């Protein structure tokens, strides 16, 4: 099992993802510089958090034109597992690999906090090990996490079970006070129609080992390992 971790100028969670994949899970992992087009035989590709291209123009807007993104899009089309975390999620939206867009948080401030999310879809390669309906706690750190899409797109996401995570309180209730950024319908993460491309704002890479006080995130990576090993 090999992870490919894309590095844009301004990515800053690439090493965290690499650490989880290699030191914690014993998998292979390679960094893929954004100018490269070879995914180096990765079984799963991660677009990590950070500030690709300094978030100039809009978060993710310029990263989408990096040469590596054509390879990532082709990999995704063939069913390859792709995970976008935070800025990586924003890049997936701008690249059109996932629907919708991010707006600035409704509070107009950068939000750095632990949030609770309800697992809405346990059928993706990155969520298979989380029981559906369970509550997972992960940290967020972002300025533009206020997910939005036209109403018909939101309805389609709901209907097709493509909302993967939803912000909720610690009991799993989706309430506005538990929504850190104003995201439509409390959406924290979504997937594409095939379920192989997943994006979320919270950071599983920042909560994958006990020494950090929370190891809830490692199951996202372990899910990929078990899903892809049994393919």
């Amino acid at each position, binding site marked *: 099992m090999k992870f490919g971790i894309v590095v844009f100028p301004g990515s800053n969670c690439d090493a965290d993802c690499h650490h989880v994949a290699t030191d914690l899970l014993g998998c292979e992992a390679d960094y893929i510089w954004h100018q490269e087009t070879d995914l180096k035989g990765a079984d799963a590709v991660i677009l990590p958090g950070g500030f690709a291209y300094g978030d100039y*123009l*809009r978060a993710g*807007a310029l990263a989408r*034109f990096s040469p590596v993104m054509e390879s990532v899009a082709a990999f995704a089309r063939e069913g390859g597992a792709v995970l976008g975390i935070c800025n990586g999620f924003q890049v997936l939206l*701008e690249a059109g690999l996932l629907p*919708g*867009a991010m*707006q*600035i*948080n*409704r*509070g*107009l401030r950068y939000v750095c906090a632990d949030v609770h999310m309800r697992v809405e879809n346990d059928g993706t390669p990155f969520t298979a090990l989380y029981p559906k309906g369970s509550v997972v706690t992960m940290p967020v750190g972002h300025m533009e996490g*206020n997910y*939005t*899409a*036209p109403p018909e797109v939101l309805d389609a996401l709901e209907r097709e079970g493509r909302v993967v995570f939803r912000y909720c309180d610690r009991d799993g209730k989706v309430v506005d006070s538990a929504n850190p950024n*104003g995201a439509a319908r409390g959406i924290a993460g979504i997937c594409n129609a095939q379920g192989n491309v997943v994006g979320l704002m919270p950071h599983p890479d920042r909560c994958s080992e006990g020494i950090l006080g929370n190891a809830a995130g490692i199951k996202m990576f372990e899910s990929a390992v078990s899903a892809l090993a049994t393919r």
Partner: protein
Amino acid sequence: MKVEVRVYPKAGVLDPQGKAIASALSRLGHRAVRDVRAGKVFFIEVDGSDPRAVEADARKMAEELLANTVIEGFDVRVTG
């Protein structure tokens, strides 16, 4: 030639930035302010002499990159 592209939140799309600016203006005493929407302007210089072609080109730029048409509208004006 010179062309301006204005990009702004679509009507109906929440604009927290515009709202914050509106409330700040109101606090400053500009009580007549009813609504603000905040956007961006791009001043672009291009080679060419046909205003129509320049405008069409700028529209393409807006659709491809300058605006995120999920949430933003835009307009284009050739200015000289």
